């Protein structure tokens, strides 16, 4: 369980990064003229959309991790059947299953490295790496978000949150890598739920206050988030390299 607490705390600390980046959107969504409850509702919708995307990506990463780490079982069946075959994987309480296959160990090392790289990005290093995450469609994503931001309807707010979740973000990528390393849908989702919920308070607050906190405080918080992610990343790598050390 302690791992999950780390993730949740990293989410809270990381949300100071979110305040900087996505906080602008929260401010832009602004205050609903219909009152405080309506404002809260609007921001809950937006954040729900955002976190749903995170959870979805976490779930997919978990499935992908599972598929990679069980590749010795590849047979001409649909992926759904593969999922069924491993229905007994109920190791949900642990970050990683106790016994690791080779695929899983490689996955853990790669994911851990990714997390370390992301934490370095949060510290302000390796900025050039963003090219790696520059999808061809990023301009389209920008245009879509802009269009939605200008629309005032409630459903647009939710849709905005959904798309917002796909914006490139080192924090999200780090946790998705972590979710993939867990090699399980359920834990992949849980990781992203916790991370997402961690970002909730700050993002809701920022929507209500409508003001960005002093950047020095935010900078420190982002460092803390970076440290947490680096820690998680290093633990993941170590687990991949020395699976017998336990936790």
């Amino acid at each position, binding site marked *: 369980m302690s791992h999950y607490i780390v993730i949740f705390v990293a989410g809270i600390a990381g949300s100071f990064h979110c305040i900087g980046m996505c906080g602008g959107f929260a401010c832009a969504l602004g205050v609903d003229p219909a009152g405080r409850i309506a404002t809260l509702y609007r921001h809950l919708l937006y954040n729900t959309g955002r976190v749903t995307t995170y959870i979805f990506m976490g779930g997919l990463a978990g499935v992908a991790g599972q598929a990679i780490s069980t590749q010795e079982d590849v047979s001409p069946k649909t992926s759904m059947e593969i999922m069924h075959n491993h229905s007994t994987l109920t190791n949900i309480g642990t970050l990683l299953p106790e016994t690791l296959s080779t695929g899983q160990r490689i996955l853990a090392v790669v994911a851990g490295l990714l997390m370390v790289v992301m934490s370095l990005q949060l510290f302000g290093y390796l*900025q050039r790496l963003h090219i790696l995450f520059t999808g061809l469609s990023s301009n389209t994503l920008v245009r879509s978000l802009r269009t939605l931001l200008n629309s005032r309807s409630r459903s*647009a707010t939710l849709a905005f949150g959904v798309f917002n979740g796909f914006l490139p973000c080192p924090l999200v990528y780090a946790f998705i890598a972590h979710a993939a390393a867990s090699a399980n849908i359920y834990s992949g989702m849980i990781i992203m739920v916790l991370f997402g919920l961690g970002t909730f308070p700050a993002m809701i607050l920022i929507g209500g206050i409508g003001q960005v906190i002093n950047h020095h405080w935010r900078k420190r918080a982002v460092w803390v988030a970076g440290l947490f992610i680096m820690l998680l990343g290093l633990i993941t790598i170590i687990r991949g390299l020395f699976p017998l050390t336990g936790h």
Partner: protein
Amino acid sequence: MMNNSLENFCSHCLLSLGSQPTQRIVNGEEHAFCCYGCCLAFQVKNGSREEPEAAWLLVRLGIGGFLSMNIMLFSLLLYSGTLDVADSEMIPKFYWLLGILATPVIVILGVPFFKESWDGARQGRLNSATLISIGALSAYGYSLLMLFTGGKNIYFDTATMILVLFTLGRYLEASGRAKAVRNVAPLLEAERQSATVIENGIEKIKSINEIKIGMKVRVLPGERISVDGKVLEGISSTDESILTGENRPVSKYEGDLVLAGSINQHGSLLIECGALGSNTQWGLICQSVRESLSNPSSIQRLADRAAIIFVPIVLSITILTIIYWQSQIPLNQALLNGLAVLVVACPCALGLAAPLATALGMGQFLKRGCLIRGGEVQETLAKIRRIAFDKTGTLTKGATSLIKIENDDATQEAVLQRAAGLEQHSEHSLAHGIVSAAKERKLNIKKSELVQAVAGSGIIGYIEGELTAVGRSEWMKKQGMEMPSSFVKKIRNYESSGQTVVCVGWSGKIHGILLLDDMLIPEVPIMVKTIQKLGMSTVLLTGDLPAVASRIAKSAGIEEWEASMSPEDKCVFLEQWGGINDPAIMVGDGLNDGPVLARAEVGIAVGAATDLARETADLVLPENGLALLPWVISLSRAVHRTIVINLLWAFGYNIVAISLAAFGLLQPILAAGLMAGSSLIVVFNSLRLEQFPDNQVELSQGTSFSSETITTNYQNTFN
């Protein structure tokens, strides 16, 4: 530590920039960002508002995505079996939940596809929407049936993810298309243009067909000028790049002429309308662009035909797949395999392969001021390996220029001064060459009296009281001018090499000879060299003497030449040169060789946009834009290559993907993702054409004068 200056902070999140910030110009201001995410987010927040009508589509996609992601998550949990252990009694309730979540998705995202396939079906056509609709509806219907009968095989996730992926694919595809036509768009709106007209001191907005010649039109800064006309009031500059391909602003003062289609830049202008609609160059361009876009190339027609028979074939394969598999495996698995076939087949990629690339190619052509008739021409240009050039007005400037003065018993200046004194009264092209040579040397042109021109021979008159004559040597002798013996041999030599010799004489003696020549346009040799590097054979076709043809061909670097040819001879030559299987391009100025251009496989005119409308030329280069020729050929080849790659991809992809699906190796959601992805690959492969490099031949000075040349040409027609 507090630093109030924001220079070292990210424009978006206001955090430190770090060592390697991302720089980007947004709304004309330079910004720095700490990360790519902030760069995107800042553009979302601060970019100008675009496409409000797209909002509804996005909201639908977002809400549909939200519901589908939840469905997907619950389904994944069910598949993973985690919930089996937790509580097996809960599972049917989850099925119901999935059904409830899926129903709005089918409505929100499915309806546009259902409508499209219904519309198609009523016209007797089956399209990709038909496949998607059948796929999504059957998965949904089957799952509903299972839900009510208590079955276990629920595929709501498949039904909804198919719709999400296809909607997403369509949206991205639409963005790609929008990008593709952005260059072409201004060239389609000539008829839709309106203008602010001033009548009796009142400003009124009128559409272009209500405006009449002589009306006063007000054009504000930033507006596109909708009529040809003369500036009555105001000072500004205009961007005529749409007409000339030249991005330099052209200054406009009172009395200057402005062209329809150009953009007024910084000052307000009042214009007297001189020509409008299809009488303007812009109108003609718009007309031909519209025609070319609606005129599919043969390769596109092939792809379209394939797409039409494609859908019924896919439907049959689907049915065969289900029939085969249902004897092997449970029905629900067999249906899933059929579903995979249905959604992995991609007629969209076939349909997209050619038009997108063609439009992008056309946009590139237009950006450089080249007008092209249709995708067919691009396709032919890409294949042709032979190119014929006309001489006068194409490779040479058309006007003769003075290259040498020989003098005897007089200074060179005196010879030219007197010659120009007489020739300033003549309209002959030789006369222009002589007068402009005198002006270039800043000579004082002598006054002449009682001037008389003798057609085909020369010109005679009095300068400073002396009888002066300029003309051919034989005629000069008849006028009683004595020829110095040193000139006789020189004249013979010059004439035998195809140069024009004009004698200048006064007081009974020839004092000088002027050597005039057709000047090769400076960029021609390098252009010809580049074209030959592209694997093209070159030939020069001219009506002039062999001596001239050989000399021009040699200095241009052209391999072959044919002299003393009539237009009819040129046509015959073009037909026989490479035969039917290896046709040739003809490049001309469009003035003298219209019929030849028309009969050539591809006729390219330099600087005669009206030819495109008269259907003599297939491609028109901007005034003085001959240097663009290698670029034109490379671009056509790049477009053709892109189309071929797209088609190979689309066909190959479909064959592989449908086989995999039919053999039961593809899960339907994966299949839908692959399919949507395949259209996007076609879109992105085509969009690479946007990055096609500019001209390989450096544009020489000649091109930068293009806009003025157009204005002068136009001035002649306007007055």
